[in-house]
């Protein structure tokens, strides 16, 4: 579950100029023709770096994203929800596995990526630094965060890097089920007992501000996306994704009799654009840089899992085996 948008602000584009101009031209021509770039093909260093970063962040978002919903597996009410919640969260971990493999084709090992996650060097989707207080929060994540992820991932599935694009196609097919599951759970809550309705509205109120930041800062604030767009690394702008999400889901939220906690939210019929209260980007930056309600807890869980499992990985390691990159 990844909304993109976190990655682009720090990219330095000076490096492109040192590439062989003939190769660069051929590379760009291939992308313009709609060809996929495969792991052994020539690619600019910046393209490689940017993709590793993006796929890695996506993979981290899947395993960290498994945690807020994962805590509700053991508490899911009734067999139907318990089994579905387990399968849903398992899918997210499976996505991480797929994505780490896709990133590995570019030359960074899974072990190294996990090390960088735990040390705080690599980022993941910022929304998972917020807590899932109740079962209803978990339902809102399953529905709306997965919905947001689909908007972003459907766009990126058309990107130029073959292994990432193929992984995303498989991931989107599964996310579509998550969306149905999340919607079904929210419908039950929103049309249920007064207590259930109160729980789901409270969860929506808590999650709306993080959801509005899910696709990253406004395009006015991000720079250097032009090259990434031309290389089909970034397929849609943050604002486009956000608008598309609002278009698709605000009516569905209203349909359920729920309210969105933003008095300014409305669609401007003349421009066709949604207007809303500008998200608090200072808070976004603060949280992404470590100072959110759950950053420390999320990383601590991951660190503990890595440390407790280290003996298993040592035992599996064959010292004679040579590391081979997967082909995805």
């Amino acid at each position, binding site marked *: 579950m990844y909304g993109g948008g976190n990655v682009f602000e720090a990219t330095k584009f000076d490096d492109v100029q040192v590439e062989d101009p003939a190769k660069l031209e051929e590379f760009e021509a291939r992308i313009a023709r709609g060809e996929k770039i495969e792991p052994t093909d020539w690619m600019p260093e910046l393209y490689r770096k940017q993709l590793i970063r993006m796929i890695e962040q996506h993979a981290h978002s899947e*395993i960290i994203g*498994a*945690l807020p919903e*994962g805590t*509700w*597996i*053991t*508490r*899911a*009410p*009734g*067999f139907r*929800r*318990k*089994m579905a919640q*387990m*399968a849903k*969260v*398992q899918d997210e*971990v*499976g996505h*991480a*596995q797929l994505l*780490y493999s896709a990133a590995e084709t570019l030359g960074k090992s899974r072990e190294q990526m996990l090390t960088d996650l735990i040390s705080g060097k690599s980022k993941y989707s910022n929304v998972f630094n917020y807590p899932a207080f109740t*079962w209803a929060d978990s339902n809102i994540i399953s529905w709306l965060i997965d919905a947001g992820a689909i908007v972003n991932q459907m766009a990126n599935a058309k990107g130029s890097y073959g292994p990432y694009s193929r992984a995303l196609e498989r991931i989107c097919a599964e996310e579509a089920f998550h969306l149905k599951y999340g919607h079904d*759970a929210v419908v*039950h*809550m929103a049309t*249920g*007992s007064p*207590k*259930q309705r109160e729980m789901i509205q409270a969860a929506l109120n808590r999650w709306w501000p993080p959801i509005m930041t899910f696709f990253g800062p406004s395009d006015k604030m991000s720079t250097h996306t032009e090259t990434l767009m031309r290389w089909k690394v970034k397929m849609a702008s943050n604002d486009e994704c956000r608008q598309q999400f609002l278009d698709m889901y605000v009516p569905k939220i209203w349909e359920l009799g729920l309210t969105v906690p933003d008095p300014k939210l409305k669609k401007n019929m003349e421009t066709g654009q949604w207007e809303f209260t500008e998200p608090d980007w200072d808070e976004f930056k603060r949280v992404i840089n470590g100072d959110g309600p759950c950053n420390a807890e999320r990383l601590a*869980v991951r660190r*503990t*899992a890595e440390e*407790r*499992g*280290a*003996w*298993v*990985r*040592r*035992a*599996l390691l064959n010292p004679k085996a040579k590391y081979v990159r997967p082909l995805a």
Partner: protein
Amino acid sequence: MNELAIKDLLYKLADDQLILGHRNSEWTGFGPILEEDIAFSSMAQDKIGHSLAFYTLLQELGEADPDTVAFTRNANQFHNSQLVELPNGEYDFSLIRHFLYDNAEIIRFEMLSQSSYEPIAKVATKLKGEVKYHVLHANTWIKNLGSSTEEAILRLQSSLNEALPYALAMFENSKYEQELIDAGVYAGEEAVKTEWLKRIQAVIDKTDLKLPDLATIEPKFGGRYGEHTEHLQPLLDEMAEVFKIDPTAEW
């Protein structure tokens, strides 16, 4: 056929799988490698699905619906062996428990698929194919890790020693044991245990682990009739936390 004897058997089967499934699901997000995270989650889904199949048979015999039975009883009403309720501990303990449990479960399912009691025979026949993969998973990992590093072997041996008194109590006899055997429902727990010992010994022989002398081990009986460790009630409280907010609601 004595219906009480059948219900007793069904509760034991269903409760074991529900509780172990719940424990397995606690590995989601915490596995030593992602692949194991995913594997334990798959097994959790199977186990809980299997428990639902057996609770459904109980409902057909007049017991309450599966959600009520699973989410509203207290620990002293549960029939699972104590082995499955113990906390996951480290991966070595979870793996050893999985190995000891599933090697017994597959035998029970094989026998029950031939049962004279047709509803159980049908369910067991349908589900045993899934349990086969659980056994394959457990045996593969025990063989791999059980002959790898000194650290892994020590950990697994210590978990094996710790789990065995609980594992042997999986075969605690039913009040209706002889009746079930005489009626051809299945060959009974002693028969399961004898076959189990052969199978786990065969796997352990391929590793650097040692099966302790079982004659010196006192099994931790009691689970089949409501005697549990202090770990079960908190597990059940957690499981029912949301359900009990409004047991009549549709979630």
